[in-house]
């Protein structure tokens, strides 16, 4: 049996392997990012280059006015305002209610605590569709349909249970010596929560803040069901209307422009808080 030629030494093989790895990863990276690049590229194209063949990646010239033409006549500023309102209120409610519940589950003892937390876990795996219709009927009876209320109020009462789970994990890791010392000094449980646990939990709380922002900003199904009046729509709803309309007019540059604007805040948030995104996703998976 022939031995391997000395040329393919160990170091060489390692370099090849590393090169192949990089190549594969570059391909993946390009494939994943290319659609987004195409989106921006399309948004800046004049009509003539839209369906040019072969495909042009860099529009010449770049029509920045497309953004104005897509946004202003179609009233998107109103939708932006709506989305911001709903999202900010949702984030506030979510953070407060989730952190309170997590604190209770993490650091206080009360009968039925573990059973109730089991309920939290179980609900996390429940498909949302099974409460879709009854919740709508509930809000219908309350007269809250076609208002922002169904999109905000539930988040003040727990909202997305994933955050309760995450925060509880984190709160548990804070040494009890700190709260014991505070208790001896006469601090109430709520005081401990406010003055010791929360300040120590800034990374985890920021993660919850960011994720609930993204979750609310990107939400489609709930606004779809509850917001009927055109002026109350959120960006995601408006985008959907735009899709349906533009498909028949093939004015894709405007559709892409509006899509880019919708994505932009999220991307910006990501670049400022990248570590929070990664940490949040990781915490979910590892503790799961």
């Amino acid at each position, binding site marked *: 049996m022939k031995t391997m030629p000395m040329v393919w030494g160990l170091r060489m093989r390692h370099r090849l392997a590393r090169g192949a790895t990089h190549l594969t990863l570059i391909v993946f990276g390009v494939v*994943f990012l290319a659609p987004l690049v195409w989106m921006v590229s399309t948004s800046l194209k004049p009509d003539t280059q839209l369906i040019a063949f072969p495909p042009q990646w860099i529009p010449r010239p770049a029509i920045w006015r497309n953004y104005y033409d897509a946004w202003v006549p179609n009233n998107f500023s109103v939708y932006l305002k709506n989305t911001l309102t709903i999202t900010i209120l949702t984030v506030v409610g979510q953070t407060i209610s989730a952190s309170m519940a997590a604190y209770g589950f993490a650091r206080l003892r009360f009968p039925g605590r573990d059973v*109730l937390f089991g309920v939290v876990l179980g609900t996390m795996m429940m498909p949302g569709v099974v409460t879709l219709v*009854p919740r709508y009927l509930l809000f219908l009876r309350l007269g809250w349909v076609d208002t922002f209320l169904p999109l905000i109020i539930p988040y003040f009462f727990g909202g997305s249970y994933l955050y309760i789970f995450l925060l509880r994990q984190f709160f548990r890791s804070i040494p009890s010596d700190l709260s014991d010392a505070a208790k001896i000094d006469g601090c109430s*449980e709520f005081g401990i929560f406010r003055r010791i646990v929360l300040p120590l939990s800034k990374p985890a709380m920021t993660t919850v803040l960011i994720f609930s922002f993204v979750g609310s900003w990107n939400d489609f199904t709930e606004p779809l069901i509850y917001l009927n009046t055109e002026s109350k729509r959120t960006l*995601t709803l408006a985008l959907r209307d735009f*899709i*349906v309309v533009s498909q028949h007019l093939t004015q894709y540059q405007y559709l892409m422009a509006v899509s880019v604007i919708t994505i932009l805040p999220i991307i910006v948030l990501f670049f400022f808080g990248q570590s929070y995104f990664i940490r949040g996703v990781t915490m979910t998976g590892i503790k799961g």
Partner: protein
Amino acid sequence: MRDDGRGRSPARRMGVDGMKLHGMSRATLNEALTGYLFILPWLLGFVVFVFGPLLAGLYYSFTDYAIGSPPVWIGIENYLTVTRDALVGKSLFNTFYYAAIAVPIGIMASLAVAMLLNSGIRGLSVYRTACYIPSIVPTIASVALMMWILHGRFGLINQLLEMVGIIGPGWLTDPKWTKVSLIIWALWTSGGTTMVILLAGLQGIPAGLYEVAEIDGANPWNKFRFVTVPMLSPTIFFCLVMAVIGSFQIFAPALILGSLSADTYWVPSGGPLDSLLFMVLYVYQNGFYFFKMGYASALAWVLFVIVMILTLMQFLLARRWVYYEYEAL
């Protein structure tokens, strides 16, 4: 009596100080009450917005309920209709087809990429960012993008194919290809998240284990099979469970892509030949387009039970292949 400023607990009011009430000391009782207070918002929300609607939905599923008139009890009629409804079979087929393909491919591909990233190369966060960003893009925006890229005549994909002489299919108009397009979209938007989770799991595997395996003469495949897979199995299991649950809830892309082929814009149709009719979409159709709330509730519960059974099966199977470190002790 001294007032300690904490209000009058039952023990206090009874004039008992430091003695036990129902076997609990006053401090424990206080802690319990505080605990309930902290979880009160959640508890209220759970009862009103989750548990209540869950039960209400069950009730409605046994009724004929059109908005505007009160629900009429019809027993198991809705469930019988479910068994006879051809569209239910179609939507179950679509949903299972999609889940059965998207989930395994997604996890395997994400794992492969995660392992590549874990091999100690530079620029890890750049690659990771590139794969993750599509995950945080709003669904509607990514659907709009997909519509444009997969456009039958002018989309990027078909143009690229044309450049090498292949006539691309109607990705979103041909019933044979619609689900494939959706699977591609799903891999693009959720692959990143899965990959990040798996990468974190890989990074948590002690390097010492690999070294020991090498000393024992393990080749790369052995290392993968006997170190990586067992140590990563809890993470893989988690990704699997969440992926299955998620894939059964697919809605927005199906709704939007489906309505494109309808004659009027706003009809939530199920796509060409109902090829994109997924379970959640069918529930939505019945509840919010046909306003058959009772039937929609029955459909939702059928889906709920199916997902629960699948999740349970996964948990039971997990005993066979998921390895938790403390079991070795």
